[in-house]
């Protein structure tokens, strides 16, 4: 399956997008296609170019070169048609208005908005509808902004760090509302630097650093590419040099260590490694397979190769000379959304050393 086989234009298509502020290349050549129905996290540290990319994608800023298209047309056309809702950096509500008034005013500017009460309800704002914006807590404010973003009943939601200033409970509630809203197959792109959030809520992660895409794949793929999976198991056999040599021959092994009667093995092909391990040893038990955390992936991909930390026992992880991992066939989509867009494995871009960044 490839992108051209779908009859619908992608929700977002960015082509060699560039934007400079003075000497700084805020966005330095981004190619990105996001299909309808995808939930994509734009992950990166502050200054990675996430917000600028969003502004360019929405047509709120003009690129130095390259182009941005939404649903196959100009971004402005999609906005006028009410197909785009967004929570932007630096976009806020007026302090003197109530939440309901804010939503109503934006609704009045749209051509076919949702009823105001419905937008409020879907964003979990019914109880704060009559409150003044100036009196809202950080989490309530974000929910109010979410209500404003969805009042046009958009097909594409762009959320720039939507859960900033939220506590854990508010974040959970926010993503709950977001999921309910996206169940109908809407496309969501959210920027975040909460790694766990990208991992938990996106079915695709686009990692950015220094205005470039440095990795693009499912959370599982991105993590697997960077660090493989960690297999921990208890064993009953005696640890000998032969056994160790045998275990090192398992598919995709990067590192192996043992402590007492527990072995830890990191493999790029954990499924195959596990299968082989189990077929050869019936004296292995209490098996645990865990993905490396997003933080590991993030660090590995956004730190310049030359300063890459060497993990104990793993040997130097050479930057992205990585074989494409097979597309995640049969992987469960995000809340029933067909993850059809993952026709390819993660693309890991080789990043030239950029002066002054790291």
């Amino acid at each position, binding site marked *: 399956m490839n992108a051209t086989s779908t009859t619908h234009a992608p929700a977002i298509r960015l082509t060699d997008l560039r934007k400079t502020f003075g000497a700084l290349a805020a966005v330095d050549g981004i190619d990105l296609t996001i299909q309808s129905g995808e939930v994509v996290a734009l992950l990166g540290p502050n200054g990675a170019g996430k917000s600028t990319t969003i502004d360019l994608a*929405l047509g709120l800023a003009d690129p130095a070169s390259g182009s941005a298209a939404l649903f196959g047309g100009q971004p402005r056309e999609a*906005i006028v048609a009410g197909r785009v809702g*967004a929570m932007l950096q630096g976009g806020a*509500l007026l302090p003197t208005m109530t939440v309901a008034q804010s939503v109503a005013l*934006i609704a009045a500017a749209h051509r076919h908005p949702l009823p105001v009460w419905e937008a409020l309800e879907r964003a979990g704002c019914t109880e704060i509808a009559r409150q003044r914006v100036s009196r809202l807590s950080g989490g309530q404010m974000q929910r109010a902004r979410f209500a404003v973003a969805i009042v046009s009943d958009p097909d594409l939601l762009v959320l720039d760090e939507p859960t900033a200033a939220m506590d854990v409970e508010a974040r959970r509630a926010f993503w709950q509302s977001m999921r309910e809203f996206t169940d109908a197959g809407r496309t969501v792109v959210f920027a975040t630097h909460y790694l766990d959030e990208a991992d938990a809520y996106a079915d695709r992660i686009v990692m950015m650093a220094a205005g470039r895409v440095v990795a693009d794949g499912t959370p599982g793929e991105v993590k697997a590419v960077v660090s493989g999976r960690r297999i921990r198991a208890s064993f009953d056999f005696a640890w000998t040099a032969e056994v160790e040599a045998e275990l090192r021959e398992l598919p995709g092994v990067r590192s192996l260590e043992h402590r007492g009667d527990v072995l830890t093995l990191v493999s790029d092909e954990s499924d195959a490694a596990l299968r082989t391990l189990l077929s050869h040893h019936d004296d292995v038990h209490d098996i645990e397979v865990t993905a490396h955390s997003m933080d590991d992936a993030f660090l590995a991909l956004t730190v310049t190769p030359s300063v890459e930390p060497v993990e104990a026992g793993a040997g130097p992880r050479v930057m992205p000379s990585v074989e494409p991992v097979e597309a995640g066939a049969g992987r469960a989509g995000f809340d029933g959304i067909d993850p059809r867009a993952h026709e390819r494995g993660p693309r890991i871009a080789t990043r030239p050393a950029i002066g002054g960044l790291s």
Partner: protein
Amino acid sequence: MSIAYLRLESLRQLKNVRSTIFTFAVPLVMLLLFGGIYGSGGQFDNVTGLPWIVVTTVQMAGYGGMMAALGQAFAIVTERSVGWNRQLRLTPLTGMGYLVSKVVAALVVALVSIVALIVVSVIVFHASLSPAAWAMAALGLWLGVIPFALIAVLIGQFARPQFAQPLFMVVFFGMAILGGLWVPLSVLPVWMKDVAQIVPSYWLNRLGQMGARLGGDVLEPALVLLAWTVVLGAFIVWRYRRDAARQ
């Protein structure tokens, strides 16, 4: 742009407490003060041939309308500083639509101010003029307010929040003095009278008086107002486009 949006936006501006004080309270107090002192005698103004209380009413209503319109500058500055502007750019509202909504809101607030002051004058001082003359006076003042609505939008676009107040004051006092709203032009140097002919505040008052008299040569004020409208409008559109890109 929808009527619903214009209605909500204008209502919102009408409810703004700060603008209410500026646009209703101040001219109202001045009207009551001046009217109480000079107005009850029924004297006529020599220049216009209108009852003195009518001239004062027109002047204060014009002042109120001008304040009401200029006051919209603060609303825009606030909207820009908090990023409401960016939120609006994600709607079908165009740059021109945004501009128009602000001008409409300014004109609605100004009209309410003008009408309220005339009503108070009629009730309190029994200022007598035919309904048609009052209506034309209000209309004349209202048309005269248009450039101020545009000036307000322009201040709103250019001023940082901390400079909005001083800029507002400079424009307001400058316009009031140059236009002869405070000091009669007859006591000012001749060149000041020439300058007055090209500032909108001069014609604001004159248009109100022409309306009240149901007569006068409207060609010159029409041309002056049109010129101001075109120039200010062009500036506003240019600035809006520049603001459009975040950087």
